[in-house]
């Protein structure tokens, strides 16, 4: 399904409902992204007020989660959505849970940032956290972009990056242990760093989840708990099938092009089996 498709319902109020829902999700995503940037920024550029600002956004994020949830329930009850509309509602319900958790992780990072700000900056100025933070913020940003455009290729790109985040997590983990063994006075700080890295890694996982929901929304294929290579193969296969089928396969109902619907290959001997 495409984003444009949202506006083509016969019922204009249904169009508006879905449009509003989607904008709310993107709005919520924007807030979460801002929380995260402030929190990560607060570590490398010490700022004692970062926790207050992040907490303010958190209130809004929580309210949006409740509102979107309620809207989804109402649409399910009144519209009985089917096919891509149904998948959209299910995807949104799951996505907002992950977004809210990203916000929670952001708040945790902000709390640690506030604590770290009271101490002297280390020589590295937390460069490793800044690098990982930028990767993870980029993932969240691209996840939301992919969501807004229903872009499965970008979603796949985010899934690929999650591996890099996991590797980076391992690297910082080892580095912290080394620091702690060399100089036990750094243990407190190293533990804080580990908490932040842990949160960032979790945020990467939440972004990954959202990208998987998005692929389900667009392609109707549930790719959770599926190996990355398999998802890549599936996406390539779909893209090729779509190219081979040409524009006829996606001819909308009622368009002039539908009158001579090509019967082959599907309807010529339509069988319910694949």
């Amino acid at each position, binding site marked *: 399904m495409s984003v444009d498709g949202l*506006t083509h319902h016969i019922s204009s109020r249904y169009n508006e409902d879905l449009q509003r829902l989607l904008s709310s999700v993107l709005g919520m995503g924007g807030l979460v992204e801002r929380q995260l940037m402030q929190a990560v920024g607060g570590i490398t550029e010490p700022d004692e007020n970062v926790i207050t600002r992040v907490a303010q956004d958190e209130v809004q994020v929580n309210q949006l989660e409740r509102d979107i949830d309620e809207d989804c329930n109402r649409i399910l009850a009144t519209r009985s959505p089917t*096919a891509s509309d149904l998948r959209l509602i299910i995807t949104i319900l799951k996505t907002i849970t992950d977004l809210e958790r990203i916000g929670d992780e952001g708040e945790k990072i902000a709390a640690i940032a506030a604590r770290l700000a009271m101490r002297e900056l280390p020589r590295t100025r937390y460069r490793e956290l800044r690098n990982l933070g930028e990767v993870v913020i980029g993932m969240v940003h691209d996840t939301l972009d992919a969501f807004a455009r229903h872009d499965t290729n970008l979603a796949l790109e985010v899934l690929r990056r999650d591996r890099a985040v996991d590797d980076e997590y391992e690297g910082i983990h080892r580095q912290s242990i080394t620091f702690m063994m060399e100089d036990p006075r750094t243990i407190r700080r190293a533990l804080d760093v580990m908490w932040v890295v842990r949160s960032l890694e979790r945020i990467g996982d939440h972004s990954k989840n959202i990208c998987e929901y998005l692929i389900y929304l667009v392609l109707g294929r549930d790719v959770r708990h599926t190996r990355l290579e398999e998802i890549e193969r599936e996406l390539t296969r779909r893209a090729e099938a779509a190219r081979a089928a040409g524009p006829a396969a996606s001819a909308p109902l009622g368009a002039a092009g539908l009158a001579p619907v090509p019967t082959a290959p599907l309807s010529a001997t339509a069988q319910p089996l694949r």
Partner: protein
Amino acid sequence: MANTLEPRPRNAPSRTEPRALPARDGAAESAGNGAAHAHAHAHSAANPADDDSAIIPMRPSGRAMQFSIDEARRNAALGAPVKARVEALSFYYGAYQALKSVSMQIRDKQVTALIGPSGCGKSTFLRCFNRMHDLTPGSRYEGSINLEPEAINLVSQAVDPIEVRMRIGMVFQKPNPFPKSIFENVAYGLRIRGLGSRLRLQEEVEKALRAAALWDEARDRLHSSALSLSGGQQQRLCIARALATSPEILLFDEPTSALDPIATARIEELIASLREQVTVLIVTHNMQQAARVSDYTAFMYLGELIEFDETSKIFTNPGRKATEDYITGRYG
């Protein structure tokens, strides 16, 4: 750092104006379906023992829709042998071609729903199954509907329509009981079939009324007029009348569109239970009904079969854009 990380602009979904509904001719919407239709002479020897069933696992009895478990879904689909093979079926009302080379396989003891906008040919398609177009001047069939296991071509002129109707029952949009008693309505077909024994008749009538979930309500008034029943009860009586002669396929043409939600729920429940004994083909405008009661769904448009698949697939992830547009209420 905090200053440099401003949220970048995001590409919001573009808004496009909904386009107007395209004009469509409703020529195929056939007129009137009130003709009372006697389901005489049930074919008692017709107990389709398909040899496929020996090697293919039977469909699990659970009615739950299997959305994601591909394997279970495939097994379920494989479980039922084919009851009717429709091959390149075309139908003409004079020069107007109402059905354009429709091919599909109707599975035995499964519910197959036909959906599509008005005039798409779904009722025409349904009526081909018991030759209800025979008396329409200038009508013409092409292709075949082979009733398994004997592979009798239902639409062949060589096949007697009475023979066809002995094996295929039909229930219409509006309840149309005969102006007789409840008992006589159900016994009608059995009498024509030559069943004279009063005791056997009583047994068969009770059996049919029970199968149609009407027995408890009608047992004390079997000899009062069928027209004294409520609309929903009358419709169930028509189902009982169709069932009395043990048809192999039961056709439903919008069976609940004239009923209230409670009577509708009863009929849907009944259709779900009927699949134990008969193959059901149902035309409905109510897509949620198709989603609820059927195992397979066929989407038709302008006389063509656009998509035919398992119901759970059609309603969560249809393969064709046109199907998607129709079931989600879009015209793009």
